[in-house]
């Protein structure tokens, strides 16, 4: 029996969601709509009586003060078009699940043996003469994502309120026949490749051949026969291999052997693994240099990096990307991105309590107005969907989103980048043992806890290892449920503190195959029974159970003597936990379905058998047209244009929708200043409320510079993260870094004829990472790469600009010394630390004029290092009133932001700015908009002038002006004329208006 309960607002009650939808229809679909009202629909399956349905509607499903309801008839009235949007079958329906639980509790014992299920959908009653075609456009272009949702459109003229909409149940109807296919790999090379592409394995010929070789080995086959297998591979085995060997999991490009050739100098050399040569090695050098003071605890080996916070606590940090899923379903993709990365620190060592999120998004401009390639969602939908996904993921998990940024470039149309980072804290030791290490012993039980397994996210790991195309799999999309995860983490933290498990890891890409496979390396093998895994619905084949990326699951190694206590605590706290097998030291990855072996692979082959990729890199420095336009006569107008650029303008509307203060330790918030609307450089929090020790978090990202040279792009990203950290009071010597590469496919092929150049770009970025991390003494503790950020539909190819996000975490000894970016009082002196050069290549200023140029900012680490240290000394002595870093838009933008954030004017003289370079390059526009690295704009109280200048002695800095009371930003040019004069309010308006309503 299927019934529909509809819940809507009473007459006269404001429908804020309906109003928001109406605004979006008018602004984004450009249709004239007078009114939109919403109705929530609960489709309840189960044998319930009329009285019960009414009671349910009146009880848990509606709010008696503001809502009304209807059972099995329509609620909507007076509309032209009614659009109902619901999930497709199998898509996670969090509200439906909560409603079912609430109804069960509400009916209590009277429910008896009756089973119920609830599916939710939402109606939008639209008043406006838009026609059926218009209504369809609203439905498909705004309200429903065809991939995961279905919709129905009913005309007001055909509407029969008494009958309402017919009930629709998006139930997964599965078959129960368990099938394990056996695949003959002893075939021609062409056929091998055919198997790889048909099964979405994303394995190349060399890899397929390595697998074929394995299944030809007589001793292997002989051993397999003992378990009922033979020389054919099972689908379970092939899928497990494809997942383990995926680019996503094995980082094949970062571990490839690259022959690098530099066209200009003709230098050729071979790099055997970028990861080992640059990333790992830089950290190793720094750690050796630190010697016994080394504060790195766990690097590159676990789900996240671990560093020391103090003697009693350790910090954990990881940044991930969730680009491909976010391209298909921005809301679900981003939500899963954030709750997914939450599980990384949570699954590191013994497990950490989560204390902050930081998010960086790269989108195409939301006001994009050209035709879209097939299957690409409009960037505005991506923007809004991702924003909302991260809002729900972060806010509902109770983790403050303390810092982030949004970068715009049209090429992110091909794939948006969604970087989600999470930090955690854990006691340094628990039960007498350090918490940052992991151990699994043979005999420990494999326990999965949290959510159930469905078809969600199958092939996520392999899918993200290829470009986005029209036929990208629907099942790759998942929708996370932060509350299921919160319940699980509440339980697991308690279990951790009671010492109820030995090791923990998360289920992310690759699902059980990856989590159990990785943990089994620590004991030396495993025996896993897939039939024991709890499923969302019947009909999953063994390989699907193994590979499913259904969310909110952790895998644990539990000592047999503790398993009863573990399971009973789980039960009590309403969390599912199931024993799926045990860890062994057999050297084999052994998977069963009931009694039958469905996969039997050598652990060493599974984890280390992938052949090394060979790549060629050829670097030819690009030459762009030099900018050729006269210096604008109105530099004040140019400044306003810059302030309104998407990459510079205020992101306040997004920031305010993220809870950045939960957990009570907020010290430097994302927005700061006299009326809390200036952009902070970095975040500072106190993770321990009874202490003033703080954590500082910052990011650096500048993909535009990749158009000129990825070496300097990476160097500038590192410097940006570092100077942001330094600005607020962090110090070199206790900050750690995370590198996160998002690249376009660098493997040369028909689809990618410029692969050698893209590989060279990758090499150069890595080289910069090594050079600058070593120079600044920043150990890398974890990282991530996403290498296939392209769109290709057979005709159109869009590749993202190569992008490195550099994220840092550091310690600040006393948060009471922290500095914000808003100027503080009239009369304070303004200093510019660092020299400015003619480095407008790749700048926002050139971009605004349609140029790229060639003179990209270069980081002089040696001089920056001295200055950063001196400045930090000044901060520690309380000599700094405000500090803002210079980045996109250079000095002019930093001045405007610091001034209007502080609500005070500034008068500066460009003639006093230290310039590096020949005098013919020195121009007002260059001094104002050049993006030279490693610079800070600082204000100092007049009485501290001498002490500040003394502290900075020997570094490049100059006093360039004074904070004023007149509410004006006044800039004197090198000729002594006033070149910029603007009121704070007009500058602020230019900065705030572009994205205010999004």
């Amino acid at each position, binding site marked *: 029996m299927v019934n529909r309960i509809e819940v809507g607002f009473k007459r006269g*009650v*404001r429908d*804020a969601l309906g*109003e*928001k939808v109406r605004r979006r229809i008018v602004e984004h679909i450009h249709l004239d709509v007078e009114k939109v009202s919403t109705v929530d629909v609960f489709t309840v399956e189960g044998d319930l009586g009329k009285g019960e349905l009414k009671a349910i509607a009146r*009880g*848990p*499903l509606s*709010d008696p*003060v*503001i809502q009304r309801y209807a059972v099995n008839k329509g609620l909507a009235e007076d509309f032209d078009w009614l659009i109902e949007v619901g999930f497709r079958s199998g898509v996670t329906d*969090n*509200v439906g*699940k*909560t*409603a079912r*639980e*609430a109804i069960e*509790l*509400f009916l*209590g014992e009277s429910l008896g043996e009756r089973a119920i299920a609830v599916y939710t959908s939402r109606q939008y009653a639209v008043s406006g003469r838009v026609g059926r075609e218009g209504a369809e456009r609203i439905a498909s272009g705004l309200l429903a994502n065809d991939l995961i949702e279905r919709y129905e459109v009913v005309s007001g003229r055909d509407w029969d309120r008494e009958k309402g909409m017919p009930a629709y149940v998006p139930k997964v109807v599965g078959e129960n026949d368990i099938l394990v296919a056996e695949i003959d790999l002893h075939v021609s090379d062409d056929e091998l490749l055919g198997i790889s592409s048909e099964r979405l394995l994303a394995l190349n010929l060399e890899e397929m051949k390595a697998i074929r070789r394995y299944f030809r080995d007589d001793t292997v086959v002989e051993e397999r026969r003992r378990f009922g297998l033979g020389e054919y591979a099972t689908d379970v085995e092939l899928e497990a291999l494809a997942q383990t060997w995926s680019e996503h999991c094995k980082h094949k490009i970062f571990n490839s052997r690259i022959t690098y050739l530099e066209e200009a100098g003709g230098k050729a050399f071979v790099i055997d693994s970028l990861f080992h040569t640059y990333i790992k090695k830089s950290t190793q050098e720094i750690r050796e240099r630190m010697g016994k003071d080394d504060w790195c605890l766990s690097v590159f080996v676990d789900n996240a990096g671990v560093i020391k916070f103090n003697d009693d606590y350790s910090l954990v940090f990881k940044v991930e990307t969730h680009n491909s899923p976010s391209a298909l379903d921005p809301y679900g993709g981003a939500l899963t991105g954030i709750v997914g990365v939450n599980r990384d620190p949570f699954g590191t060592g013994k497990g950490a309590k989560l204390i902050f999120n930081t998010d960086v998004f790269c989108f195409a401009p939301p006001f994009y107005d050209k035709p879209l390639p097939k299957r690409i969602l409009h960037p505005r939908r991506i923007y809004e969907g991702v924003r909302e996904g991260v*809002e729900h993921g972060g*806010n*509902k998990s*109770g*983790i403050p989103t303390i810092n982030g940024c949004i970068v715009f470039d049209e090429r992110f149309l091909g794939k948006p980048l969604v970087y989600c980072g999470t930090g955690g804290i854990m006691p340094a030791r628990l039960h007498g043992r350090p918490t940052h290490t992991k151990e699994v012993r043979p005999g420990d039980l494999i326990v999965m806890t949290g959510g159930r397994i469905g078809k969600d996210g199958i092939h996520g790991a392999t899918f993200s290892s290829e470009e986005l195309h029209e036929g990208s799999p629907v099942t790759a999309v998942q929708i996370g449920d*932060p*509350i299921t995860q*919160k*319940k699980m983490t*509440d339980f697991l933290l308690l279990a951790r503190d009671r010492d109820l498990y030995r090791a923990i890891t998360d289920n992310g890409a690759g699902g059980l195959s990856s989590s159990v496979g990785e943990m089994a390396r620590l004991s030396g093998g495993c025996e896993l029974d897939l039939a024991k895994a709890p499923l969302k619905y019947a009909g999953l084949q063994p390989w699907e159970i193994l590979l499913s990326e259904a969310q909110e699951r952790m895998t644990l190694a539990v000592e047999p003597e503790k398993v009863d206590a573990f399971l009973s605590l789980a039960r*009590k*706290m*309403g969390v599912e936990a199931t024993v799926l097998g045990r860890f062994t030291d057999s050297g084999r990855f052994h998977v069963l379905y009931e009694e039958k072996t469905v996969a039997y692979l050598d652990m060493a082959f599974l984890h280390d058998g992938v052949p090394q990729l060979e790549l060629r890199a050829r670097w030819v420095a690009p030459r762009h047209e030099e900018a050729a336009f006269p210096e604008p006569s109105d530099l004040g107008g140019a400044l306003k244009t810059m302030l309104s650029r998407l990459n510079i303008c205020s992101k306040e*509307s997004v*920031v*305010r*929708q*993220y*809870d950045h*203060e*939960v*957990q*009570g330790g*907020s*010290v430097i*918030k994302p927005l*700061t*200043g*006299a009326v*809390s609307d200036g952009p902070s450089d970095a975040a500072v929090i106190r993770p321990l*409320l009874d202490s*003033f020790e703080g954590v500082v978090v910052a990011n650096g990202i500048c993909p535009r510079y990749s158009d000129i040279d990825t070496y300097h792009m990476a160097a500038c990203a590192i410097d940006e993260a570092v100077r942001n950290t330094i600005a607020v009071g962090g110090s070199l010597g206790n900050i750690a870094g995370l590198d996160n590469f998002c690249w376009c496919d660098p493997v040369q092929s028909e689809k990618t004829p410029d692969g050698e150049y893209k590989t060279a770009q990758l090499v150069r970025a890595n080289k910069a990472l090594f050079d600058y991390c070593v120079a600044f003494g920043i150990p890398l503790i974890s990282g991530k790469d996403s290498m296939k950020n392209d769109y290709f539909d057979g005709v159109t190819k869009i590749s993202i600009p190569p992008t490195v996000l550099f994220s840092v975490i550091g310690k600040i000894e006393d948060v*009471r010394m*922290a500095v*914000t970016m*808003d100027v*503080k009082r009239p009369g304070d002196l303004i200093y510019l630390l660092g020299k400015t050069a003619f480095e407008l290549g790749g700048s926002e200023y050139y971009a605004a004029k349609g140029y790229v140029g060639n003179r990209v900012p270069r980081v002089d680490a040696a001089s920056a290092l001295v200055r950063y240290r001196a400045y930090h000394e000044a901060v520690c002595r309380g000599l700094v009133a*405000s500090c803002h870093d210079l980045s996109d838009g250079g000095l002019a933008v930093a001045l405007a932001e610091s001034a209007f954030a*502080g609500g005070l004017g500034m008068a500066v003289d460009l003639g006093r700015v230290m310039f590096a370079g020949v005098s013919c390059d020195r121009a007002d526009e260059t001094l104002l908009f050049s993006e030279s690295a490693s610079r800070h704009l600082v204000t100092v109280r007049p009485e501290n002038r001498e002490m500040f200048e003394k502290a900075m002695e020997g570094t490049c800095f100059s006093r360039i002006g004074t904070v004023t009371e007149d509410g004006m930003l006044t800039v004197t040019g090198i000729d002594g004329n006033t070149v910029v004069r603007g009121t704070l309010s007009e500058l602020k308006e230019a900065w705030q208006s572009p994205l205010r309503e999004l």
Partner: protein
Amino acid sequence: MKQAKAIVLTGNGTNCEMEAAHACRLAGFDVVRVAHISELLYGEVLLDDYHFLNLTGGFLDGDDLGSAKAQANRLKYARVSRDNEHLVDQFLRFINDGKLILGVCNGFQLMVKIGLLPALGGEYLTQTATLTFNDCGRFQDRWVYLKHNPASPSIFTKGIEKGIYLPVRHGEGKFQVDSDHILERIESLNLSVLKYSDSAYEAPTMEFPLNPNGSLNAIAALCNETGRLMGLMPHPEAFLNRTNHPRWTREKLPEEGDGLILFKNAADFVRSNL
């Protein structure tokens, strides 16, 4: 002297328990127990053993059926496994014993939806008010000025001069009532403890963003007639130290944050009355 005992209820999506417990400790409670809802449902923890119940902020059950709605349903209908007592009876006993409940944000939403506030005439468990979607249609994290009603019976706000400054962090904070009559009684009994106001705490305001959600009569906090039950949308536990203040780097501020006074008053009340 008798110990003052506070309990902070967690689970199913609460997320301010740590700072709420910290606030209770700073305020001088001798015992501060952070208890998971399952501990109550299994009878391992009894409300009877405590004096001050904190219902903290969060997203109970994801706010899936409307803010705190599913938890309100749970507290009304769930039974304690040990003796099959309805959990809600434990709550009512706690209230009748003259003890204190403070609901913050999601906790306030919960109190209103179970019918613990305003509970006019002591009529508990009948919902007459609600908190719903902000007029702006968005979740908002921002700081607000809260004008204090000195005539209010709330024991939590005693000693507040003009007002306090706290952050709100919610998407469903707009206060609404069943009928004009309810609102009249709320106002005439001075149950509207705090109202969104201008920065001088001079007058209540309906103007966004000072009033972040469009609450009726700018009501941000509500107590019952005994003054011992109070709920508010802003987060007092988020402003315990001056470094929480959004302008602490530019203003001279006392070391202690505005939010602590609510918890101190609770501790004082417990010591002198319970």
